[in-house]
């Protein structure tokens, strides 16, 4: 187990293994997303209240789930990196942040698009959308902190501390926003209500597609990070046939 | 930055870490003081890793960095009162006699901000003396000192080693420590 672990943590091995893994994530992701889109946009029946407007859920809900899951993965990787001083874990955290930020952005953008026909406004201070917005701020703070520290090891450890503080705060932020929202307006919650099975499976397909997409992009980013950190190493020159 | 450095010191010894600028003298001393984690390798104090027995090690260590760790708005006396006080109980007379020993007693009630660079270095050295630690780690202690000051610091370091203490110091000039021949550790 440990031997395997160390092998994975050594840059040349990791670089090769990641390269082999990317297609195994990337292609299924593409297939699942296309199937999910077809199922959601064409096959699924229109909602009896919201008509076709509800179809944006097929992008919105998986994005929102991913935005939180990626933050969780990021914080877990950061904790592993801090405790066991593992560079690879820090690299996973660093590579996850921009992907997570984009998922958050997608969730916000689709939420806002959905809001226009439903609430008649581009932005409604709905509890979930507000939580997503604060989550985006957390991601942006993390990215900003990383980019302003030059020493990569210090950047790793500093951003890891921030990610951990953030992940403890995340549920507090979420519940305080829900509490705040329930006081100021009734429940205009973004609520899809009961979904029939033919409405549900495309959403699941999209969600798994997004997860695999995250995996593929994560490995691409990690390979790029390995190249950046090991740019002077002999094995890399051989690998890239320079 | 540093690779393949192996260093040890025993009681009564002065180790002179030498080498041109940029060879990592400060980095080495900071690693030894436990301020910087070693990427590979360990630092041991009395046979135990300093990462494990951090507090015990700190209690026996006095570190003088590039910066003097003085507060410009506090007087010389206050600087020592607070700076040493968080570590051990000490009396005002102790502080005064040390200031006198270092030749800066007349600066007792002056804010550190108005002292000359050499006087500030002497004040920082007073803290090292007052801490009463076994191991001194001094990074370029002679910076900004006049000839008399260099002589005084050398005597202090020699006395410390003679009393069974040890000192690790980085300096780019040669050392002349009375009564002891420093061991040279050259970095390149």
């Amino acid at each position, binding site marked *: 187990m440990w031997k395997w672990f160390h092998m994975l943590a050594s840059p040349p091995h990791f670089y090769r293994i990641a390269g082999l893994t990317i297609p195994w994530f990337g292609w299924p992701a593409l297939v699942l997303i296309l199937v999910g889109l077809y199922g959601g946009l064409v096959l699924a029946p229109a909602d009896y209240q919201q008509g076709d407007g509800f179809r944006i859920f097929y992008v919105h809900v998986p994005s929102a789930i991913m935005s939180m899951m990626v933050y969780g993965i990021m914080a877990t990787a950061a904790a592993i990196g801090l405790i066991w001083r593992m560079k690879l874990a820090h690299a996973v955290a660093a590579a996850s942040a921009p992907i997570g930020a984009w998922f958050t952005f997608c969730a916000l953008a689709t939420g806002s698009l959905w809001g226009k026909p439903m609430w008649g406004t581009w932005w409604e201070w709905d509890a979930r959308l507000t939580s997503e917005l604060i989550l985006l701020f957390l991601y942006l703070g993390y990215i900003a902190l990383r980019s302003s520290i030059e020493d990569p090891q210090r950047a790793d450890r500093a951003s890891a*501390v921030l990610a951990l*503080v953030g992940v403890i705060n995340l549920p507090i932020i979420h519940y*305080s926003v829900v509490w705040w929202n329930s006081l100021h307006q009734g429940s205009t919650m973004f609520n899809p209500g009961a979904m029939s099975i033919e409405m549900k499976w495309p959403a699941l397909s999209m969600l798994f597609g997004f997860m695999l997409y995250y995996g593929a992009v994560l490995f691409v980013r990690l390979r790029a990070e390995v190249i950046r950190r090991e740019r002077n190493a002999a094995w890399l020159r051989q690998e890239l046939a320079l | 930055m540093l690779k393949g450095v192996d260093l040890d010191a025993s009681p009564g010894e002065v180790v002179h870490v030498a080498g041109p600028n940029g060879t990592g003298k400060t980095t080495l001393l900071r690693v030894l003081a436990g301020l910087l984690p070693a990427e590979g390798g360990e630092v041991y104090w009395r046979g135990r890793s300093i990462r494990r027995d951090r507090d015990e090690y700190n209690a026996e260590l006095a570190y003088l960095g590039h910066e*003097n760790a003085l*507060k410009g708005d506090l007087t010389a006396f206050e600087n020592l009162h607070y700076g040493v*006080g968080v570590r051990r109980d000490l009396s005002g007379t102790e502080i005064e006699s040390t200031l006198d020993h270092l030749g800066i007693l007349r600066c007792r009630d002056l804010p550190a901000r108005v002292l000359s660079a050499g006087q500030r270095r002497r004040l920082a050295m007073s803290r090292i003396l007052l801490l009463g630690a076994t191991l001194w780690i001094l990074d370029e202690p002679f910076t900004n000192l006049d000839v008399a000051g260099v002589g005084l610091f050398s005597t202090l370091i020699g006395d410390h080693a003679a009393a069974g203490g040890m000192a690790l110091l980085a300096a780019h000039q040669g050392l002349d420590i009375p009564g002891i021949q420093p061991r040279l550790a050259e970095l390149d």
Partner: protein
Amino acid sequence: MQTTGLLKAGGLLYSRDLRLAFRRWEQVTQPVVFFLMVTTLFPLALSPEQAQLRQVAAGVVWVAALLSALLALEFMFRSDYEDGTLEQLVLSGQPLWWLALVKAFAHWTVSGLPLVVTSPLVAASLAVPTGAMMTVVASLLLGTGILSFLGAVGAGLTLGVRRGSVLLSLLVLPLTMPALIFGARAVDMAIMGDEPAGPLYLLGALFILSLTLGPFATSAALKVSME
């Protein structure tokens, strides 16, 4: 040789920081002046009408206090970091989380407490009724405390970083949003004549949480920044 106990070391560090702050008096007064000025902007921008001011008073007082306290946050460890004192504190043999807690408390005393003391003045200028003053003070007492203990983590992380002050706000503001929600709500309820105990308790819970977890995160942050 007698090593200094935890409490005595904390007391020394606290009195040192207070003494330093009072020798630089203008640094202590700046956040308060900022607080007064920002709250003056609102009647000018909105309207001098009492009823209208009273409606927004809770939010204005809280946002202004948060921003004023944030202004001082970057100085919590800055000078100790620059002159090497922080290294000596790390090597002092005292637990770093304890020193971080004491420094955050000292910082709150000179930057948060003055805001709390001046807040009734500000609140009165925004037509907050006298009955709600206690809530204003209590909520800000907890709120500025939360900002100091939580903000200490950010202040530790941004030491020696380019454009650290902007970055610091970016890191700390999202984390303080729950405190803002509960604090402003408590004040608002008091202004309306309701019982504000609920949100105040929640604010108290946040304070306990940041007081207990903040110093540990701060000490980790400081260690990272010292490297």
